[in-house]
């Protein structure tokens, strides 16, 4: 019941006209960048980080959260009408959604995804409001050793467990580590990884890295693929109203998707891919209209994954706010916004910054309502955004990228780093390296180092703290299993299937 009181207080913060305006601005901007291919919430929030010097923390986090939620809504529009998933989490939505649009049921697909996003987003936000205080109580007993081990676990899950290859995921993560360590070591004042350049003493700004990888890298990638063929926009046909049958097929899928997405998002592993794929598989299995999957498009296959996606996006906020543990690139950039205010997310945040936290959570409910209004009646407006031609779109993105980067320090060095990272981002896309671990690694590695040193200082240099504390040991064991487990499993599978394959003529 305590939570309800906090929430009521949160609504009193969020319902001030100024904060409502930030929420509206954030959701509108978020939907727009979600719709536009090539722009994502991580990049947009990074570009807007300078706003943290101008406005109160409540305002900027309400703005960022609106962008974060809005991008999820907008992303599904692009997946359905263009079949180009704007976000990795909306790949599954594109599977059935685009088929539905092609068979003239685009309106229903958009409706079920927007309403499903609303249902799941609201449930997920409720989940944040009620789960976060529980996690906070638990987290208050964490010492530095537990925090360090938790971060190790998160490093492994975001890079090695999710994604197509653990070696490439870890490589991205370690590149992030290197970038994160550039600059003066705050504890000893030693410059590290600066190659003797004074410009690097302050470290590399997360804005430069995010913009380089996501904006410049993406632009190079799209420029290089002119031979790859273009995706066609499917014109929006069919009414936005869902028939009774479509409602009946959707609502269970929404609830199942939300129930799947939120817990997985809230784990210190994050990632919306797993819950969306799981939801898709479940809906396909339970559906009475299996023949529609992969042919004309099944509405459950849009409703479920889209709900799972939004619920997991809400879930990601739990470890971010309660433990200071970002598990997605966007969350990592939001964490750096906290840092720029001198606020440390973690269990204490709920006590010292109650206004901020509960105002933010309340604004998420409001954002969901605004978003379902923005995305259903006004859908025609967003569809028009899809018609912006690629040359001007990408050139424009780079103009904003330059402003955002050059504005930090007016140093051409930053631009050089930006463009080099853009080249790296291109190679990463071409050779299937995930980019999110770079951002998470660069933000979280210095924090892990701080916790590590604290733990070692308390234990007087005794390494055993990390395995003598039962919780820390558990977390490290989980991390180890996450790293090794899939390989052992694959090895056993190979062993098992090898036998019959070698029988001649068995093919």
């Amino acid at each position, binding site marked *: 019941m305590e939570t309800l009181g906090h929430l009521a207080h949160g609504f009193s913060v969020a319902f001030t006209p100024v904060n409502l305006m930030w929420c509206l601005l954030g959701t509108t901007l978020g939907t727009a960048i979600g719709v536009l291919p090539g722009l994502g919430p991580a990049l947009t929030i990074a570009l807007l980080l300078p706003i943290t010097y101008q406005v109160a923390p409540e305002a900027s986090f309400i703005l960022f959260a609106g962008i974060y939620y809005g991008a999820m809504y907008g992303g599904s529009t692009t997946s359905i009408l263009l079949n180009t998933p704007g976000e990795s989490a909306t790949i599954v939505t594109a599977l059935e959604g685009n088929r539905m649009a092609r068979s003239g049921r685009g309106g229903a697909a958009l409706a079920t995804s927007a309403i499903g996003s609303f249902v799941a987003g609201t449930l997920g936000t409720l989940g944040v409001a009620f789960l976060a205080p529980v996690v906070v109580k638990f987290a208050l007993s964490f010492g530095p050793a537990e925090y360090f081990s938790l971060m190790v676990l998160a490093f492994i899950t975001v890079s090695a467990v999710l994604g197509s290859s653990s070696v490439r995921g870890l490589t991205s993560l*370690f590149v992030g*580590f290197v970038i994160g*360590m550039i600059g003066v070591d705050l*504890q000893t004042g030693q410059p590290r*990884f600066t190659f003797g350049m004074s410009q690097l003493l302050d470290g590399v700004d997360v804005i430069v890295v995010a913009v380089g990888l996501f904006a410049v890298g993406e632009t190079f990638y799209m420029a290089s693929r002119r*031979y790859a063929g273009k995706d066609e926009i499917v014109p929006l046909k069919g009414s936005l109203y869902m028939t009774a049958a479509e409602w009946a097929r959707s609502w269970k899928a929404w609830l199942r998707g939300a129930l799947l997405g939120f817990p997985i998002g809230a784990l210190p592993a994050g990632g919306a891919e797993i819950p969306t794929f799981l939801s898709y598989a479940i809906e396909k299995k339970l559906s009475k209209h299996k023949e529609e999957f992969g042919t004309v498009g099944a509405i459950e296959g849009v409703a479920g994954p889209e709900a799972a996606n939004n619920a997991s996006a809400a879930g990601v906020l739990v470890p971010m706010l309660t433990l200071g543990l970002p598990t997605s690139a966007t969350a990592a950039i939001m964490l750096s916004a906290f840092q720029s205010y001198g606020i440390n997310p973690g269990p204490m945040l709920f006590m010292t910054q109650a206004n901020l936290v509960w105002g933010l959570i309340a604004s998420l409910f409001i954002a969901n309502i605004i978003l379902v209004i923005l995305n259903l009646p006004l859908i025609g407006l967003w569809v028009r955004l899809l018609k912006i031609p690629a*040359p001007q779109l990408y050139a424009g993105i780079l103009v904003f990228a330059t*402003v955002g980067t050059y504005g930090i320090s007016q140093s051409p060095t930053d631009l050089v780093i930006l463009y080099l990272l853009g080249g790296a981002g291109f190679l990463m896309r071409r*050779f299937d390296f995930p980019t999110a671990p770079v951002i998470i690694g660069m933000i979280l590695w210095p924090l892990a180092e701080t916790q590590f040193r604290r733990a070692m200082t308390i234990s007087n240099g005794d390494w055993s703290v990390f395995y003598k504390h039962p919780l820390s040991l558990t977390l490290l064991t989980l991390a180890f299993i996450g790293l090794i487990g899939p390989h052992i499993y694959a090895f056993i599978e190979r062993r098992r299937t090898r036998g019959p394959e070698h029988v001649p003529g068995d093919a």
Partner: protein
Amino acid sequence: MSTSDQQAARPRLAVPELLIGIGLLACAGAVAWQTLSIPVSPLYSKVGPTVFPYITMVGMTVLSLLLIVAALRGGWQPEEEKETPTDWKAMGIVAVGLVANLVLIQPLGFTAASVIMFVLICHGFGSRHPLRDVLLGLILALAAYFGFARALGVNIGAGFIENQLNTGLDSIIRMLRG
């Protein structure tokens, strides 16, 4: 899928992936060089500033070696990417646009440099309406400049265009205030 087929397709060395692996190994070398050059004061000998750099160094080295091994075994690039030829000309023009921006942003100011970059990138992407692009680029650059510089208080390099407009804008504001 027959067994003989599988054996016939012997893993072949993948050159691009190998280059990536070697490049990362070189990065690991640079990390090692930088790690070893961090001076360690005996005061911090327990957990000094070098523990995490060492971990990073070892991790980078091991991972780049694993990638090199993967490259020797045939690489990992997804088929879809491998089959799409790279449009080097388009990428080159985009890169020229970026370099032009880098070189010109200080002497000419943000707006002029951005317009040149905008037009070059549009050209790289296949737009053949340079005049329209100049106009669009100018509008966007000014919107970005005034959005960021005046609303967010970010100081972006001002050149001739910005200074003229800033003076104009300031005098209008003064006039409005009476």
